[in-house]
């Protein structure tokens, strides 16, 4: 994963609440066995609507998505994060995220920035008035700024640390292999196994 320190780009206002991961990418697009190529499934049902924000030419090339509350609820599909990344998004801003979506974002290198509903409203107003407004998301300082607006965002410290350093979770955990083995030696004997124990 590439390190993420600061991102500057234009933003799209998604004036919807409860955008679940089925809306972000419907199940029929989940049949691929690769980690890339999900761009065509992003918001598939809405992309046919000429009024949809991402179909407006002034929002071409956006990399920040500003969404209503409860973004990314529902299914655990990480494909939702991959589809946003494949389309070109690097940051999603909302007042509430689905837990699993927020976790998946941190793993895959998409910044899920938690702000108040007021900040979402201000960002919507700013980028609707001038779609060319550059939005700056600074992960070091945990701030988001656009035009006159500058506001803090929340992200848990550990995800921030990993994103700033571009660290791979599995590698970090395997450095604690001795702890894992020590724990395994203490597991209760009656816990079930799916396979017979190895001889």
């Amino acid at each position: 994963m590439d390190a993420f320190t600061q991102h500057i780009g234009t933003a799209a206002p998604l004036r919807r609440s409860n955008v679940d991961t089925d809306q972000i990418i419907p199940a029929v697009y989940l049949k691929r066995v690769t980690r890339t190529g999900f761009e065509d499934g992003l918001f598939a049902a809405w992309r046919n609507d000429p009024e949809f924000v991402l179909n407006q030419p002034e929002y071409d090339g956006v990399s920040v998505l500003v969404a209503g509350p409860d973004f990314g609820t529902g299914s655990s599909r990480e494909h939702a994060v991959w589809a946003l990344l494949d389309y070109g998004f690097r940051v999603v801003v909302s007042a509430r995220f689905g837990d699993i979506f927020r976790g998946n974002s941190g793993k895959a290198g998409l910044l899920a920035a938690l702000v108040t509903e007021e900040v979402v409203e201000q960002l919507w107003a700013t980028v609707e008035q001038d779609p060319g407004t550059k939005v700056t998301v600074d992960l070091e300082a945990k701030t988001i700024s656009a035009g006159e607006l500058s506001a803090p965002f929340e992200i848990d410290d550990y995800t921030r640390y990993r994103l700033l350093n571009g660290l791979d979770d599995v590698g970090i955990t395997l450095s604690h292999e001795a702890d894992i083995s020590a724990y395994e030696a203490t597991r209760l004997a009656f816990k079930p196994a799916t396979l017979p124990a190895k001889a």
Partner: protein
Amino acid sequence: MGRTLSEKVWDAHVVRRADGEPDLLYIDLHLVHEVTSPQAFDGLRLANRPVRRPDLTIATEDHNVPTFDVDKPIADPVSRTQVDTLRKNAKEFGIRIHTLGDPDQGVVHVIGPQLGLTQPGMTVVCGDSHTSTHGAFGAIAFGIGTSEVEHVLATQTLMQARPKTMAVTVDGVLPDGVSAKDLVLALIAQVGTGGGQGYIVEYRGEAIRALSMEARMTICNMSIEWGAKAGMIAPDETTFEYLKDKPHAPQGADWEAAVEYWKSLATDADAAFDREVVIRAEDIAPFVTWGTNPGQGLPLSANVPSPDDFETETDKVAAERALEYMGLTAGTPLREIKVDTVFLGSCTNGRIEDLRAAAGVLAGRKVAEGTRMLVVPGSGRVRLQAEAEGLDAIFKDAGAEWRGAGCSMCLGMNPDTLAPGERSASTSNRNFEGRQGKGGRTHLVSPLVAAATAVTGTLAAPADLEPVDVVVPENV
């Protein structure tokens, strides 16, 4: 001070705790399916890493498999490739797999409990948000993304921040004809789809204690629909009775030791929850959703709401959009909504008791003209059990389609989908836009309401039906 059920189970799985880091938690059981795992196995191959504990891992194919002609190759080549990829990965990494045609193939959250692999006090994960189902046994069970699937395969652990605790206490006795599904839909309508965010929820109280294991699974299954990290129910005699003699349940002296340990997991009398919600079971009635998220529900006796009924601007806009998508007019009685398709199945309501409940309503009755009903058992074993009890004959005689096991129309990834504009009454868990097929409209219901709706062709409860004289098979 005492500890809650979830705190006890959490603490028993901490491999490593360090300041400023999430806990490293050990995972007792990892369930794997075809849709969220291929990229995780690729990751292992790229890094040349093995699966650390194949003996704590089990795979099945459920999301993307057909429910008919299951003895033939899968017709859709992309789906076939995904299923074949899981089979190859299971073979390469030494993981047990249950494939189409095997009695233990089926919805991943149905087969874990039916095999006795889900037990109290465990940690259970799967690349599927409805993993919360397994919390019914007093396990901490939650859904994870594909990166985390890879992490668990490689390390048998996960890094997790410790959630807050919440108690949902359901006092009293559920009225006749009201099921666990109605209860959980009513709860979500009250607390909202984000109400559980950041919490592990413990469901407790008289009405919860009175539920069967399968009904408890229905409740815990829907925990994710109100945003909770996980939902749990303390293990008790009902749990032990269900588990005893399941294929992977502890045997002999191990059973005694296990039960003693499981009994110790209950929340201590002096433990405190970060938040508490209390519900009166007597207030619950058959419940259905009218909108496009599981919190947009009302008792079946109500009318379609108006956007003006909602307080916040966000809720008003959401209601307006939902009514437009659902093709509904404010003020219409819910009972007058005509349904094209009834779907009985899924990890929420695809177990044998759900099939019995629906068959009890359909015995001696017919599915309405112009309505189709799909019955999709949660697993091959549920299907065999239903056939042994004669339930398949009741469904077929009524005019319903009797299918093979899988997720099917719950998420419309296989050929079982709604056409644009088509309306369903579905015992599944999500009424999101397009969930059951592009443009499809979903009303979430209990198995009893699903069966009654199939008979009338409009949303209905069994109490709405004319009585019939029939001899109903024993368990129904």
